[in-house]
């Protein structure tokens, strides 16, 4: 197999896997196009995340362990943009919350300028402490009042400030394009968080960025879970608007029914497939745009400089490159892509469920994708995204199948058999760890190596 053929062949194999999933029910395949497309859609989103992480790791050697946080911020953006504003929430406390947040930001800014202006010493410490304490209590006082106001509004179904959808609570689903607007906003939110983390941890030892990103992810999640006024916390926001048609509308449309019947397809199945296909097309479009941009940037002087910095930081610094600044740039960009993907994912799910964000799923899985696919190579990370997601879904059936085989001889009802069968779910973590270590050790350049 020549080098040039490697990429197309691997992608063809990937396509074959999805086709098998859609057509045969042999072994672990389900034989349903619905499942196949559902896996494909999430796989596309995963590929976008992997692309973002590859930007950070493959181009610049930055280790981001907080992907989950940036993904969750994207999800948050979907609610804050594409949902309608809760009636009365802004006047009932929303403005007060915003004011309190400004107060908080002002306090931090004042503290920073105080820190810079006053001479080091005990006086500075006292002044800083006093300022922060007063600022904090002021912030909490205003903030708590606002939160109380917002959360009191119909807590069973809303209790949050809602978003910017102009359609209002009854007609917001007609403004599906708002979901599309939310995607880049998700990227912006993630970029903001990444800037704060990068500003502090970049330029220090490489481990520190990893630890700081681990921290920011935990905190973003804590905020999304606990600040009910923002996006209802663990009470979840459901019924997010879609940029694509609803199945019910398709089933009611005479035109669609006629078309489906002309193909000899079941109308319900056809509608679900049509919806998934439209998502798939949208996601593919985004992925392609990003992939083209990533490829262009990789070949540009900027990309060459990035890789030069990655390969020899000292030399690049000696040549007058501001390494920390470049790193910050690429870290923010990569995180923004993760945020964008996070917003897309929440739109696809149609709901924001903070309880479902697990670091294993949203941080470490993406890492496996990048490493397996080939760090430094954009096509590699896209392939990794598709492949690993497919396996992530299939590890459980494969694990079950394995366990069935292992426990075949055991008598039914034995506690060991029951335990083994129940534990198949944990095979995921285990096998992903093994995959990561094996690839890292024996094929550190991945399936499609960097050129």
């Amino acid at each position, binding site marked *: 197999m020549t080098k040039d053929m490697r990429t197309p062949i691997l992608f063809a194999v990937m396509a074959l896997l999805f086709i098998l999933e859609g057509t045969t029910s042999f072994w672990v395949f389900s034989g349903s196009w619905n499942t196949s497309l559902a896996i494909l859609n999430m796989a596309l989103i995963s590929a976008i995340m992997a692309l973002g992480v590859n930007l950070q790791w493959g181009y610049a050697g930055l280790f981001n362990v907080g992907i989950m946080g940036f993904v969750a911020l994207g999800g948050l953006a979907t609610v804050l943009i594409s949902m309608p504003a809760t009636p009365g929430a802004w006047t009932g406390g929303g403005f007060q919350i915003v004011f309190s947040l400004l107060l908080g930001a002002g306090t931090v800014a004042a503290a920073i300028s105080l820190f810079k202006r006053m001479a080091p010493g005990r006086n500075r410490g006292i002044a800083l402490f006093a300022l922060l304490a007063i600022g904090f209590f002021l912030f909490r006082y205003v903030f708590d009042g606002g939160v109380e106001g917002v959360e009191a509004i119909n807590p069973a179904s809303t209790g949050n400030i809602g978003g910017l959808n102009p359609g209002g609570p009854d007609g917001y689903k007609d403004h599906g394009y708002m979901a599309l607007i939310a995607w880049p906003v998700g990227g912006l939110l993630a970029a903001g968080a990444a800037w704060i983390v990068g500003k*502090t941890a970049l330029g220090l030892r490489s481990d520190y960025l990893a630890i700081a990103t681990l921290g920011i992810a935990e905190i973003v999640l804590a905020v999304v879970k606990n600040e009910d006024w923002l996006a209802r916390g663990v009470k979840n926001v459901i019924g997010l608007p879609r940029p694509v048609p609803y199945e019910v509308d398709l089933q009611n449309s005479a035109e669609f029914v006629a078309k489906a019947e002309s193909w000899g397809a079941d109308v319900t199945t056809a509608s679900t497939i049509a919806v998934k296909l439209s998502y798939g097309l949208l996601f593919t479009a985004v992925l392609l745009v990003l992939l083209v941009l990533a490829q262009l940037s990789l070949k540009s002087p900027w990309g060459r400089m990035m890789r030069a910095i990655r390969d020899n930081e000292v030399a690049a610094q000696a040549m007058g490159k501001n390494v920390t600044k470049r790193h910050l740039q690429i870290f923010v960009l990569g995180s923004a892509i993760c945020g964008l993907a996070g917003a897309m994912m929440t739109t696809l799910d149609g709901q924001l469920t903070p309880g479902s964000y697990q670091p294993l799923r949203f941080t470490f899985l993406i890492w496996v994708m990048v490493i397996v696919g080939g760090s430094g190579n954009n096509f590699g990370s896209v392939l990794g995204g598709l492949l690993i997601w497919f396996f992530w879904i299939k590890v459980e059936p494969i694990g079950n199948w394995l366990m069935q085989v292992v426990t075949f001889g055991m008598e039914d009802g034995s506690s060991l058999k029951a335990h083994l069968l129940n534990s198949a779910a944990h095979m995921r973590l*285990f096998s992903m760890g093994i995959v990561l*270590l094996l690839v890292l050790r024996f094929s550190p350049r991945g399936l499609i190596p960097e050129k």
Partner: protein
Amino acid sequence: MDFLNAIVALSNFVLIPAIAYGSQLAIGALGVTMIYGILRFSNFAHGDSMAFGAMITIFVTWWFQSMGVSISPLPTALLALPFGILGTALMVLATDRMVYRFYRQVKAKPIVFVMASLGVMFIMNGVVRFLIGPGEQRFADGARFIIKARDFKEMTGLREGLAFKTSQGITVITAILIVAFLFWFLNKTRTGKSMRAFSDNEDLALLSGINPERVVMVTWIIVASLITIAGVLYGLDKSFKPFTYFQLLLPIFASAIVGGLGNPLGAIAGGFVIAFSEVTITYAWKKVAVYLLPEALEPSGLAQLLSTDYKFAVSFVILIVVLLIKPTGLFKGQSV
């Protein structure tokens, strides 16, 4: 009287829990710092290795309990601890052999070690959940309290009770013993000194004939002991649940960095800084305030600075501030 009540309430809800939690963090952070000092990477598998060590200890504890072996009023887990340490030591040595040693030989960048430790974390995570399940496990037995709140009230006649849990007492005593032993080992024994030398200046240590593989092995054994002890103490004090151990990673890293990575003294100080900040900031101070302030000034709310859901934010903010102002930590750590 009110003043005494306030002090008792403060001790009961802030000081004692923070000291116990701080000790647990300190032991955990000592492990992180030792690995950083000798092997020069941040071990992300630390939290899950703690869960592993605790798990082995729990299995042995259950076995002892089923056989009726007990050292009541002390928890049986203490008796099982050496077995847990042994199991964990074997596990980390095997991991080192299969994973990290290769990267040492090829002199890989530290970040590659970090990533490998991430893979180990995954596997550890899977193994622990596979063997003991993801749920909460109870394994504490023996006397629950050294001092019960009610007894304390009767004894002193105060309105506030002071409860001192056995697990807290054990935690603090163990922590003191461990720290004393570790410092004796590092400062007085030949092996300990060679570890410090290796951590200080690897090339010169090699020139002096110090065997790196031996240093690494001893380090892993010590780390395994620290990990298991921290994991078991935390499990006894709070409860054992695999996921909480993953979450401990952040406060433990924060402790080690705040104190200065690679500096054992710093790890201990850092553990207590983080624990006290976390507990004081998330504690509802109303209970103390009612005794100290005149009625008119009594807080109407709970007087809690941050909800406990944000306790990780405390570690994080301290971490960020330290990284911004003094990246080498309070005590001079190894490098930036």
